[in-house]
């Protein structure tokens, strides 16, 4: 009994409530004529779409930089990569990999600058990263209008310049990961094998990285910066590494998202992406200064499950569209919960 109690405490009540809420939704689904097989397929698909964003939270949390509310910086790099990939007319898997590779230099550059900035403002990272992210998105919006892209699939038809707000990746690399080895059972269920394999690969690489010398040093910086400095680790360097890594994963994340979703969304679209990822990793059991691969998987699954199931089930059951409100309350409630825990504030 006591063991159960500590387990519950470790896991936290909000997460348990969300878990049971999700289970209840799945149980209720058939009664309100929501197809359970297509729902589960959707959950897997959306899990794959978003898991890399959630994974991107890990390095910065571990290095003591807090929650990366400026993930949109990485997303911007990814958008640059994917638009360039389409501009160069890359197709299929080469198109997707091209997008990732082309976004890498931007991600490293942006991440490096962003990391340098965060090193100057230790203790205030979260608020600042949020606004740096917002400002970056807006600055980039100007560039989307003036960068010399020419591919007719991307620029406004009548003006011949300036990128459209949504660009389809159909005909380029739509669902290249999703359809790789995809398992189709019945008319409604598709298991996006390739996408999930890719997520697993990224998570595995991250897991490996965290066990290398650099990864261990990173964690040391996060748990006790003074101790880390005393053992000869450059705190600032490790923090910069974590930010670059997080930014790069943000870029990879948006490429994965696009190939599955089918569209590249520019301009204001990345503004609120970080919040979903933050909420997801916190639902998964991470705190402001500790996160693991398990947190990523559990969190992305629970959060995306919730996002998929609440609209369909609640709306069919109550005949209203209250699910959007539930999403806002749940995702922000969980971030609030994590922020108000009594944890040592990172210095």
């Amino acid at each position, binding site marked *: 009994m006591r063991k159960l109690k500590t387990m519950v405490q470790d896991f936290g009540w909000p997460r348990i409530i969300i878990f049971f809420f999700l289970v209840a939704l799945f149980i209720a689904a058939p009664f309100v004529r929501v197809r359970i097989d297509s729902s589960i397929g959707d959950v897997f698909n959306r899990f794959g779409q978003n898991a890399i964003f959630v994974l991107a939270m890990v390095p910065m949390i571990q290095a003591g930089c807090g929650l990366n509310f400026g993930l949109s910086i990485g997303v911007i790099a990814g958008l640059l990569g994917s638009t360039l990939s389409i501009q160069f007319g890359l197709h299929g898997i080469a198109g997707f990999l091209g997008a990732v590779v082309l976004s890498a230099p931007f991600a490293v550059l942006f991440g490096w600058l962003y990391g340098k900035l965060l090193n100057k403002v230790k203790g205030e990272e979260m608020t600042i990263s949020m606004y740096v992210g*917002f400002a970056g998105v807006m600055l980039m919006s100007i560039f989307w209008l003036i960068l010399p892209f020419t591919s007719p699939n991307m620029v406004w038809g009548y003006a011949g310049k300036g990128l459209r707000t949504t660009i389809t990746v159909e005909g380029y690399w739509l669902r290249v990961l999703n359809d790789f080895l995809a398992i189709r059972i019945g008319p409604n269920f598709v298991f996006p094998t390739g996408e999930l394999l890719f997520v697993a690969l990224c998570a595995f690489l991250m897991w490996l990285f965290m066990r290398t010398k650099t990864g261990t040093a990173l964690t040391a910086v996060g748990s006790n910066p003074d101790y880390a400095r005393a053992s000869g680790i450059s705190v600032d360097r490790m923090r910069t590494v974590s930010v670059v890594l997080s930014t790069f994963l943000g870029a990879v994340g948006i490429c994965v998202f696009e190939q599955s979703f089918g569209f590249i969304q520019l301009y204001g679209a990345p503004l609120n992406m970080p919040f979903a990822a933050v909420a997801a990793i916190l639902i998964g059991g991470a705190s402001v200064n500790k996160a693991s691969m398990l947190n990523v998987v559990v969190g992305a699954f629970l959060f995306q499950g919730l996002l998929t199931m609440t609209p369909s089930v609640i709306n069919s059951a109550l005949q209203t569209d209250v699910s959007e409100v539930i999403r806002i309350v749940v995702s*922000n409630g969980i971030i609030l919960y994590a922020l108000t825990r009594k944890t040592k504030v990172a210095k």
Partner: protein
Amino acid sequence: MSGKKSFGRFFSENAVVIIFLLITVACIKPSGLSLTYIGQEMLTRLGRDSFLVLALLLPIYAGMGLNFGMTLGAMSGQIGLILAMNWNLRGVDGLIFAVLAGTPISVLMGYICGVVLNKAKGREMVTGYILAFFINGVYQFIVLYMMGVVVPIKNPAILLSRGYGIRNTLNLEGVRQSLDNLGMIHLGPFALPMATYAVIAVLCVFIVWFKRTKLGQDMRAVGYDMAVAEAAGVPVNRTRVIAIIISTVLACFGQIIFLQNMGNFATYNAHDQTSFFAIAAILVGGASVKRATIPNVFIGVILLHVLFIVSPLAGQNLFGSAMIGEYFRQFIGYGVIALSLVLYAWRNRKEIERRRESFRGGAAGAAAAPAEGVGK
């Protein structure tokens, strides 16, 4: 201290204001707008926004940073206005009713916000920001699903056709500019909403007076050092909650003033940008996370809004695209918040390093330390 150094210090302390002033002045000419037009817009917006920005002052005094939770007050004010619309109250009566209805809600919201922020000491700003999102969900739930079901709404003009929930856009025709038109003075080409200015002046007097009361002094003490204040017998948590409650109530009044000037409001989005504009304004005016004065508020409102007036047209005329100006102004808004937070945090760290130097007996550190008093 040499002249060059003091100039450098002046620049670094007022960097945000100076940069902003330069950008704004540079945009005025290409926008092609007449100075009279800009002046009138500025006077109108000064009346519209100053109250909201003033609401930010007390939490800064109390060391809680920029109160992103002011959105909670704005939402309370909106509920007050919705209720006033429901009973078809017109003119200043409608506004007074909205204030009376909004106040208890905003006190409750402020209390919740204060308690939550006390649990998140050291990261009040990001917590306040997320709290505003969270309460936004609750607000939508109440206004979109409860109004007309649990909260009786009699006026069919504000209800959605399905029978419950408030319409997306509310026309505030009954109370539109009722405060502004009360004692409007025409001075040459300019119209001055004197009643609105009077309300703002009263608030400024209140803030000046409040700072001198026992509670105001306690707030400053808490803002300077929580541990010292606690040791001196100041109830830290209680003082912080009071600062937030007052700020939230003021934000509620401020939002009502703001919306009566606008004349209609988007029921579900009007509060989204409230804290963003108010905080950008006070920072543009030269305030920092720890230090803000009443002049900061007015300088900020004027500078920010002049830029907002001219930037879309400047973008149109310079680059041939109004969208560029629009994105530019949003970039500036977010960028200015990021920049002043960065400058503040960076200066703070420099200060800590300098103190460390002076402990070690570094002459440079010792010389610089006394000049770095606590301000004001």
